[in-house]
């Protein structure tokens, strides 16, 4: 028999500000946090960015902050908020059975930090001279430089700050990493290896390296001359790429009895999780449904990945169509236009939205969606949130280039 796993805490930092509730309110109100982000003195770029994020509020040690890339600061903040929300910060017992799994990946360097070092490494011909880098450039970097950007450092810092001595993992499966991390944390509690797990992801790509890389890959919406809030359009016929968002989302997962014993607030129960390769959208959804013991006729709400890349959205809608086969009870929505595409954290943030949707019995609208290029084969919620009675939800995190994962959550019914 495996243990039952419930969600008892939500934490988010997004362009909408601090907390899961701030994100949820914006999602149901079609209010986008996307704006212009200052990348340099005279350089602005469209993106979902929270200007007032104050890492010092979450990490009081200045020295620790200095070795945290912004992604790490965001991760620590959302993890802290999730633990607060779960009232789980002051638990005295059992820390050897508390753990953390974070969805992460390559973290981008701060360029100015490298400038002096690289400047000292330029040879007479104006090109980089590795000999000079070894002798002059390298010593100019600060000693802990590497640790600031190692992908597993968010989970490391979180384990230290909150004394989580149990399982600790870092999942690097691109855009699906955050939700994959939650799925794996669910498995760990199911098999009895932990009682409480923080799981989620964080990403900050609203920086010169991130912007240039997404441009090379050709996946960004061209906002030229338009209000960037209107340019991110999942499933719409005019979808032309995503807008970068910065964000972090964490959930607290708990073994059911552990949560009950301390009378924790229970948001939902995780009942299904599926994972496949980068084109396995259908397989992931079907595996999650099967484990949840649901047929395609039983599910009322699907929080789609909805990347806003035309081809990716087509593949997702086709897979949804095939799995649910025109099921009329299914309502689908995609919320990324509100916060931007937040990479490693996007799946975890979408799970937070679907969890609040389940709790509020309100299915959010898909902002900026007007009409699809061809028949979608399912009902995509637009304009207004839909009040419904439903007890299960699916959340997808797919591509681009990452793996495919799908999770099913259910309203917890006390048993």
């Amino acid at each position: 028999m495996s243990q039952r796993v419930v969600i008892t805490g939500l934490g988010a930092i997004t362009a909408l500000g601090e907390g899961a509730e701030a994100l949820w309110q914006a999602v149901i109100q079609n209010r986008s946090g996307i704006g212009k982000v200052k990348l340099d003195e005279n350089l602005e770029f469209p993106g979902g960015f929270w200007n007032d994020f104050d890492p010092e509020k979450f990490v009081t040690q200045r020295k620790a902050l200095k070795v945290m890339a912004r992604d790490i600061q965001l991760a620590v903040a959302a993890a802290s908020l999730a633990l607060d929300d779960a009232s789980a910060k002051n638990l005295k017992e059992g820390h050897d059975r508390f753990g953390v799994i974070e969805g992460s990946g390559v973290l981008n360097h701060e360029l100015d930090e490298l400038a002096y070092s690289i400047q000292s490494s330029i040879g007479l011909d104006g090109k980089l001279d590795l000999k000079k880098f070894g002798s002059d450039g390298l010593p100019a970097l600060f000693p802990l430089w590497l640790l600031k950007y190692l992908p597993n450092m968010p989970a490391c810092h979180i384990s230290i700050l909150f004394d989580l001595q149990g399982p600790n993992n870092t999942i690097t499966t691109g855009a699906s990493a955050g939700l994959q991390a939650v799925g794996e944390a669910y498995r760990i509690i199911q098999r009895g290896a932990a009682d409480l797990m923080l799981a989620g992801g964080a990403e900050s790509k609203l920086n010169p390296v991130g912007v240039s890389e997404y441009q090379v890959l050709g996946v960004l919406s061209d906002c030229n001359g338009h209000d960037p809030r209107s340019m991110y359009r999942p499933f719409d016929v005019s979808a032309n790429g995503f807008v970068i968002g910065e964000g972090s989302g964490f959930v607290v997962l708990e073994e059911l009895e552990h949560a009950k014993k301390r009378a924790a607030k229970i948001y939902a129960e995780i009942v299904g999780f599926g994972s496949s390769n980068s084109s396995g959208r259908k397989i992931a959804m079907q595996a999650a449904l099967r484990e949840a013991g649901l047929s395609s006729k039983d599910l009322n709400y699907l929080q789609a990945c909805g990347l806003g890349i035309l081809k990716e959205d087509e593949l997702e809608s086709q897979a949804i169509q095939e799995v649910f086969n025109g099921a009329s009870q299914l309502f689908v929505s995609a919320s990324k236009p509100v916060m931007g595409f937040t990479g490693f954290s996007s799946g975890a943030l979408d799970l937070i939205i679907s969890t609040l949707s389940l709790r509020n019995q309100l299915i959010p609208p898909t902002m900026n969606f007007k009409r699809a290029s061809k028949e979608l084969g399912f009902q995509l919620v637009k304009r207004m949130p839909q009040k419904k009675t439903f007890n299960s939800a699916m959340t997808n995190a797919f591509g681009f280039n990452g793996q495919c994962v799908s999770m099913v959550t259910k309203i917890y019914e006390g048993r």
Partner: protein
Amino acid sequence: MRDDKMPRRRVVITGMGAVTPVGNNVKETWLGLSKGQSGIGYITIFDASSFPTKIAGEIKNFDFNKWPLQKGNPKFLGRNSHFALEAVNEAVADSGFEKERVERDRIGIYFAAGDGGFDFPQYASIVSESIRENESSVNKESFIQKSKSRISALSLLEKDPCQVVNHLARVFNVHGIVSNSLTACAASSQAIGEAMEIIRRGETELMITGGTHSMIHPLGVAGFNLLTALSTRNDEPQHASRPFDKERDGFILSEGSGVLILEELEHARKRGAKIYAELVGYGVTADAFRMTDPHPEGRGAIQAMRLALKDADLGTEKIDYINAHGTSTQLNDQIETYSVKEVFKKNSKQIPMSSIKSMLGHMIAAAGAVELIASVLTIREGLIPPTINYENKDEACDLDYVPNIARKKEVNAVLSNSFGFGGQNVALIVKKF
């Protein structure tokens, strides 16, 4: 807690593949390890002549044309992708499962692929050409424009750790669970442990697992040098990695890949597969202490070993050999020794414990997988690979490290340790089948 009365699906190892600094397949690697051969030499991948550390464990005589020329593969692959494709190919062929009809969504991949590295000279040139005159700050607009015109999409994709598993899933036609863990030096052991759990709970019958990594690039070496984690014994490359020796001065960065095919026992039996060994124990913890230093009393390491023993349902007296993490840093080797003594108590001095990092260097995300392969072969061959370069006894390291020469011994069960920068601890146990 797991219900101990329920029979649990058993997991066996039915295939292995390796690309290491001592050999580009399992056979050559094992031959090198049993002869106490070092794979360490001067760095040739880039000009490291002015770096504090000029030595590493590079992969040699590798055919970098083989995989890009195969149909469906991109023309540009990172070193980590090359090594993984080669090692997985060997492991899949070795296991023979492709000869049977296995449903493709009942096969999964849980890998520990490191980041693909990147073209540092190109990146640095773009940064340097974008630096504002008379100050040390970068003109971001210029950086973005130059990056856009010079960097290729393929090279960007290869930077991403998940690109390796994309290649593997495509080339080996895997549709089941796909995941990738990157917990520094513990990553591939953690991947193997999680892959075992996936088969145990019945999600797949077969898992391709292991790791691949190369951090032998300017920023990788520079980063570890800044942390003073690397050995600087540049005049004696082959003697630089000396785990547990009193004169050890840091680890040696190396590269490569190690891969294991895990299979549900009945599935393996039914198809008459060759069974190398049974994977029976997995423990994972975090130190929750500091970014680089291990917990001074080995709290997390001790707990990981105890969890693995409990999972395997084995007493400490049943372990015949410990394949150590043994990095050759002052702190790791001392605290690993202390932790093993805490777990194994009076038995600790009787159990041989060696570190093959003395020969291979530290393959970071790929290290644990290659060490598990060595553990499996130790059981199969009745031969314990040595800790080479062991010359000077350290008071704080007083166990039997199998110094310098491989030792014949019947071995039934092996504990393999992996500890990561950042405090992740993983212990695995394999047993004779």
